[in-house]
């Protein structure tokens, strides 16, 4: 399994990264070395093994559904690069 320039362009688009040609060229080489390092794992016999998503047992945590204070609107917007009328302001979404 190897990683081509086309794969990288597809994945960088999914990840919303606007990589330069120089970055793309350098990254392809690096990523193939990383993929190569996964080879040992591909050879492990993992049939019948359950997956572990959490290292320790997790359980649902419940609380009473009572109103409580969170951040105020002003606090939530305090670090926004752009806001208007109490809302986050972004450039045009529908193209």
């Amino acid at each position, binding site marked *: 399994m190897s990683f081509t320039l086309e794969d990288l362009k597809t994945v960088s688009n999914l*990840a919303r990264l606007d990589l330069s040609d120089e970055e793309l060229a350098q990254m392809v080489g690096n990523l193939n070395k*990383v993929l190569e390092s996964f080879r040992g794992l591909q050879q492990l016999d993992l049939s019948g093994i359950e997956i572990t998503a959490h290292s320790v047992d997790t359980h649902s945590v419940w609380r009473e559904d009572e109103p409580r204070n969170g951040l105020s609107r002003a606090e939530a917007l305090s670090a926004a690069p752009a806001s208007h009328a109490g809302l986050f302001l972004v450039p045009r979404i529908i193209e």
Partner: protein
Amino acid sequence: MNLCEISASQMRELLDAKKVSAQELAKAHLERIHRLDPTVRAFLKVCDEIALKQAGAAQERIMQGETNPLLGIPFALKDNMVTQGIETTCASKILEGWKPPYDSTVALRLAQHGAVLLGKTNLDEFAMGSSTEFSGFFPTRNPWDLARVPGGSSGGSAAAVAAGMAPIAFGSDTGGSVRQPAALCGVVGMKPTYGRVSRFGLIAFSSSLDQIGPFARNVRDAIWAYEASAGVDPNDSTMQDAPYDSQIAHRPAKAPKIGVPEQVMNEKIQPEVRALMQNAIKSLSDAGAVIEQVSLPMIEHGVSTYYIIAPAEASSNLARYDGVRYGLRIEAESASEMMRRVREAGFGKEVKERIIIGTYVLSSGYYDAFYTKAHKARTLMKTQFREMFSRYDALLLPTSPTTAFKIGEFAGDPMALKIADYCTIPANLGGFPAISINAGYSGGLPVGLQLVCDSFCEQTLFSIALLAESVLGAPKMPELVT
């Protein structure tokens, strides 16, 4: 006596005996930071005013007769734990200038204990790295040799404690990011069991692996710091309310049974590091420990497993940096173009590579080949370790395969640097608590010894670490500062 070179426990005695005030302690540390840090560069931000204000409040509590281990003790916090109103950057340009509107649980708890915040320490951007060279701002230097790395990603916290700029610091450990820099800087570094310390306000890297842990110059101080930070928090639903016995933790263990995996005593480990492990094994045996060689073949697959799971989770966690709610913004015609430009300009090379790897292993067609396999390998790793913990109180491993390497030594080789986490990753994958203590010096550079215990057995871990520390001797201070 130099107030910056004594342990937190000794500072406690001086504070309680009114021989020194919390303000004097804070001032001594701030003065030392301003003198040494232009060279070491452990701090991204020094909080002079806040520290002196908190020290004043702590001194009032002391004068009223209150005492608790960290009251009036200065500390430093890795800059991936949010602090209300204090710039928190995660060493990334994408968060430069961001002042969080709330406190992380750890910051809040330490403030409640009366600990005094000196500043925020440097890290590899978003905690992705093992050398602190990938900070978006500048690399931190190892106080033992300024041409070398302090380890990472919590390199700033480790260097600060090693250089006497703080007696205690906190870091986060996703694949070894507390223990490895502790080893390379010659201090104590500890990763608690996953679920012991709240991750609320810890900027997420890999949510199933991240855990906050303390640095200190001796085990007792590390226990105090751990105890002040641990305990269930309703804001982190992955926490567990498991018992912990502080009395056991503070007593050196007698005749513990310890396994040493053969997979960490081979050519992957520098011969000098292995030799110091053998010394430590002999000293511990002479002190009554029963030590046997064991086999844990899955250790060999830890790095690959980790470099699938951690980037996968990171690619999802870092999707939130989109220029909308906080952080960097670069204007563009459309929202999606704005996001691309923000992420391209704001993230460093290492972060982009990990986002790409993570997105790739999660993408359709590759999910089962990589991500599912890694999660199954994680099960095998955990099973092998758990089986060992049914027979042994702890496992002993080197913390890092090498001593501190030179800044830039591994530039251009993406896997060489990742091997630095070979001995530390298994504890993260299994959720086990682990500690690194100094085992001696090779070529003038510190070497760390790691102990790993079963989940929620912190008291056993600390008690064996106390025994090990008593036979190995207290760590030294680097010459830079003496």
